[in-house]
Every structure is written in structure tokens, then in C-alpha cells.
């Protein structure tokens, strides 16, 4: 839901601002002519292209955050994380259907295309050939990786702090946390907003990558896919999430590429089986995990603040030291 919203908002902002900044008429952003004009503006004006991209990302994050705040109200009323997943799944599907049937939002069913990467203009400076398309895309992919690393580091730092401890306490025992004056609703809202800001960002990045925001991309399988990623790696472990995302994305892209490749060798083979077969594989993985390993492959991580290292924590049968302050801190335990 937040991913899709970020995508649609990002694309719409980009489609409106590109002509606006370059002095061209905005017109109907869904027209084929406006799509062509977007592409030529992106090619001609590097500065506008990049700054519109930044603004589009900012709006996508803002939209994701606001939506996250709104969604946190029903989310606060459910006790089990599985019900929360249901809310998000239903919310995502509602979003998709609304967008599909509302031409005013992201051009409805047709989607909004002609969203080039912010480095499209680089192709002016490159010799004609495949490089013209690949360099801007490759550069953009590198930027995405950097942003992803940034998000991961942020998440790791948050987890290994008093806030991480607070999050765990709120998750594990609401009543006990409240008895210690923790505002549980507030914490849940905060984390929901942070998560959906990240999802909004991801949605806009994705749209800029594939060049089109279309409701078809926001089918429930997307939510399920993310769900599988989470459960696979272990959802209380940031590295686990990364592992899950890696495995599922590889499965996803791998099946697509291999399906197409196989079909070119064996024309009789129906590549759909391989390309869409991934959904079946994902479903099987999900079921197996739910039955045998509900907590995922990697275990939950401990919160690593000084409280963890200061008194020799984490070690079995640690000897209490009478002068804790003199125990040398064992270096920064933060990872990532």
C-alpha cells in the first residue's frame, strides 16, 4: 500500500514538475504527447531532471508517512501481528482497485509512464549503442543500492539503541511497558510511520527504475512477496530481512530471466510456467516456514547498546564486576 502510494505520488509529482520547471505546458499528464515531452525534458535538462527526482522522492516519503499515520489507527486496535498483515494486505488491494478505476489518480488503469531515471541525460554524452541506455540505469541502480544501505544502517542503529529496547518491550508486553510509563500507542505510530516512509521511498525509486507507475504492479502478490521475505530471513533481525529480500528477489528476477531464456531455446515451452511459477514457489516457502520455522532462518538479535557490553553481557555466566565503570567498553557494537 505504502509502496504503491509512493510510486503513484512520485510519478505524478515527476510528471507535473518536469514540464513546469522547464517552462513547457503541463497539459494532461496521461497523454502520449506529454509522455514524450517528459522524456525530452529529462534528456535536455540534467539539473531539472535530478531536482525533480529528489522532490518526487520527498513527496513519496511524505505521502507514505501520512498514510502510515492513518493506517496506524486501525493497526493500533489489533493485537496480533497477523491481523496487522491482513489490514495492510486489504489496504494495499483497496488502493490498487481505487487507482485502477480512478483516471485522476496516476492515470488509473493505464498507469503513468515516461518516468525516466534521473540520469537519463547522460546518454547525450555517450556513444550510441547499448551503453546509452545502460549507463544511466546502472548508475541509478547504484544510487538505489546506496539508499538501501542507508536505510539498513538507519534501521540497525535504531535497533541497537534505547529505542530498540523500547520497541521490543512494547511488542512483547504492552501492559508491562505501560506500567513503566511507556506510551505504547505513540511508539507504535512512530514505527509505523518510519516504516511507511521507507516504503514510500522504495515505491518512488522503483517507479523511476522501471519507468512506469501502474496499478498492476501493486497486486497482493507484492505484499505477500514482502511478507515471505520477512518471514524467510527472520523478522526480528535486520540482516535476516536483507537475506529474505535477497533470496526472494533472486527467485523473482531469476525465474523471469531464465523463463525467457529457456523459451528462446525451446519454443514449445511455455515460459509463463517458469515466470509465474515463482508465485507458487513463494507460497510453498511461506507455508513451509509457517509450519516449521515461524521465526525465520535467523534468530532475533539482541539490542546492543552499552548496557549490553558494559557489564560483559551476552557472555554466559558473566562474572559481576564490582566496578562496572572500569570495565573497558568493548568497542562499538553497532553493525552495518
Amino acid at each position, binding site marked *: 500500500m505504502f509502496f504503491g502510494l509512493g510510486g503513484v505520488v512520485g510519478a505524478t509529482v515527476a510528471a507535473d514538475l518536469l514540464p513546469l520547471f522547464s517552462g513547457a505546458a503541463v497539459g494532461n499528464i496521461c497523454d502520449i504527447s506529454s509522455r514524450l515531452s517528459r522524456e525530452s525534458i529529462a534528456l535536455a535538462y540534467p539539473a531539472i531532471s535530478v531536482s525533480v527526482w529528489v522532490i518526487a522522492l520527498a513527496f513519496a516519503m511524505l505521502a507514505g508517512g501520512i498514510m502510515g499515520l492513518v493506517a496506524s489507527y486501525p493497526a493500533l486496535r489489533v493485537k496480533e501481528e497477523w491481523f496487522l498483515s491482513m489490514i495492510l494486505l486489504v489496504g494495499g488491494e483497496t488502493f490498487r482497485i481505487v487507482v485502477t478505476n480512478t483516471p485522476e489518480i496516476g492515470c488509473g488503469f493505464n498507469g503513468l509512464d515516461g518516468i525516466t531515471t534521473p540520469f537519463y541525460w547522460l546518454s547525450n554524452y555517450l556513444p550510441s549503442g547499448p551503453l546509452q541506455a545502460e549507463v544511466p540505469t546502472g548508475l541509478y541502480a547504484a544510487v538505489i543500492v546506496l539508499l538501501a544501505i542507508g536505510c539498513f*544502517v*538507519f534501521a540497525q*542503529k*535504531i535497533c541497537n*539503541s*534505547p*529505542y*530498540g*529496547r*523500547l520497541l*521490543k*518491550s512494547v511488542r*512483547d*508486553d504492552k*501492559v*508491562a*511497558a*505501560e*506500567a*513503566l*510509563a*511507556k*506510551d*505504547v500507542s505513540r511508539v507504535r505510530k*512512530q*514505527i509505523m510511520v*518510519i516504516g511507511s516512509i521507507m516504503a514510500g521511498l522504495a515505491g518512488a525509486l522503483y517507479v523511476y527504475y522501471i519507468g512506469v507507475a501502474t496499478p498492476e504492479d501493486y497486486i497482493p502478490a507484492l505484499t505477500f512477496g514482502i511478507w515471505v521475505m520477512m518471514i524467510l530471513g527472520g523478522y526480528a533481525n535486520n540482516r535476516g530481512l536483507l537475506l529474505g529480500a535477497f533470496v526472494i528477489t533472486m527467485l523473482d528476477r531469476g525465474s523471469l530471466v531464465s523463463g525467457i531464456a529457456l523459451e528462446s531455446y525451446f519454443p514449445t515451452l511455455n515460459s509463463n510456467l517458469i515466470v509465474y511459477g515463482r508465485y507458487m514457489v513463494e507460497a510453498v516457502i511461506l507455508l513451509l516456514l509457517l509450519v516449521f520455522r515461524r521465526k525465520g532462518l535467523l534468530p*532475533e538479535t*539482541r*539490542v546492543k*547498546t*552499552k*548496557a*549490553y557490553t*558494559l*557489564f*560483559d*553481557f*551476552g*557472555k554466559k555466566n*558473566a562474572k*559481576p564486576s564490582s566496578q*562496572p*565503570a572500569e570495565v573497558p567498553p568493548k568497542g*562499538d557494537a*553497532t553493525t552495518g
Partner: protein
Amino acid sequence: MTDEPILLVNGISKSFGGVKAVEGVSLSVKKGSITGLIGPNGSGKSTLFNLISGAEKKNPGGSIEFDGKQIDALPPHKRSELGMGRTFQTPRLFPGMTVLENTMVAPRGQKGERPFVAPLRRRWEGQEVELAKKAKEQMTRLEIDKLYGKLTSEISGGQMKLAQLSNALMEDPKMLLLDEPTAGVAPRLAQDIFQSITNERHERGTTFFIIEHRLEVLFKHVDTVFVMHQGRIIMEDKPEAIVKDKRLAEAYLGI
């Protein structure tokens, strides 16, 4: 101890479906006192504490006043912010954390508890070390400092009770509601716990309101005792007077 009340409960009730767990209870607890709450199993003691701390919602009607403020509309964390701490009959500790980390959850207003300060380790690390020291002193007072590196799943029930008490004491509450602080604790340790409670009262002026089944220990340390039976307060008196009253035995024998 003064004559001024810190807690004033007026005509509150709670029913679970058809079960009337608490029925029109009114009582007052004096500031700086150690007050006991006793009564047979199922008489509604824990439920009464839940109503006072806000963990359960009372039926409409009646009122609860704490430290001069009307608190019955406040959510539990707000009541705790006002200085009302509590422990639970079945210890509620955070799993997957050490005893010290549990106690470290308790301090309020930690800089690193704000999501956008949390990534900036330097901004909160100093405070974290201070709080860890304070938590350790707290544990030393309760003689559980040897447990600080143990996971909460590795300690005994009695130790859990103490760890819980340590969490609740971290923020220097004005009043503490303790639900059976010595259940599952060795007899000698039960004496020690009450000794710590008495010390805490003298040193910091904390008010204690305690549910306890070990009457012989409780009676040695309390100023006043309430007896609850079938959701109602049936007696309020000094412990010396309560032991002599035959209504106590009657309540416990279920007559």
C-alpha cells in the same frame, strides 16, 4: 507517614460478564504508609489493582484520585508518569533481555528513546551509562545484582519478582502497588523483601500498597490492612486488630 491520603478510591466496580470481581470499593491509602490488601483467592484484589493502575477499565461510575488528581480517565502510562508504579502477580518481564536491560527499559525520558535521536549514538550513550549504573545500584539494594547479565528466562520465579520490583523502583515512584511480592520466594527472602520495602519507605518516603498472602510477614511491616471478600472491602484496621477479628477467619474459610 502523614494523615493525608495519596490514593482515594470511591465506589468503583468491575464485572467480567456476570462475575462481579470488584463491587463498590472505596478506600484511602495514606501518603508514606505501607498498606496491606488481603483476602481469599478470587476476592478481587488483583482486579482492584488493575483498576487503580488502569490495566483494566472500571465500570462506569465511581472515581479514583491519586496525589490530588482525578486519574480514572487517564491511560495506564499517564498514571505511571504521575508516580504510580506497580508489579504484577505473575511477573511480567520482557523476554529476550537480561535483567539489567529490563530495568533499563524503565527510566523515562531517555534521549535514545526518541526515534530520530536513537541513530546518533553519541547523543545518548553518556546517559545510557549513567542509567546502567543507577540500575545496577538499584539491583544491589535488592540484592539481585548478581543476576544482571542473566536472561529473564533463566531466573527463578522469586528472582523475577525482585527484578520486577527493581523495574518499578527505578523511577522513584510516589506509590507502588505490589501484587504478592513474595509469592514463590523462599521464606528468608520474603523477610528480606519486606525489609527492603520498609527501608525504601524510610529513605524515599515511598507509599506501598501491597497484596500479600503471607500474613505473618505482612503484618510485621504494615500500618493498615484492608480485607477484601467477594469483591468488597469488609474490614480496615491495624494489623493487631485484624488478626483478632473473627471475620478474617470467616472470609478465608469461605463462610
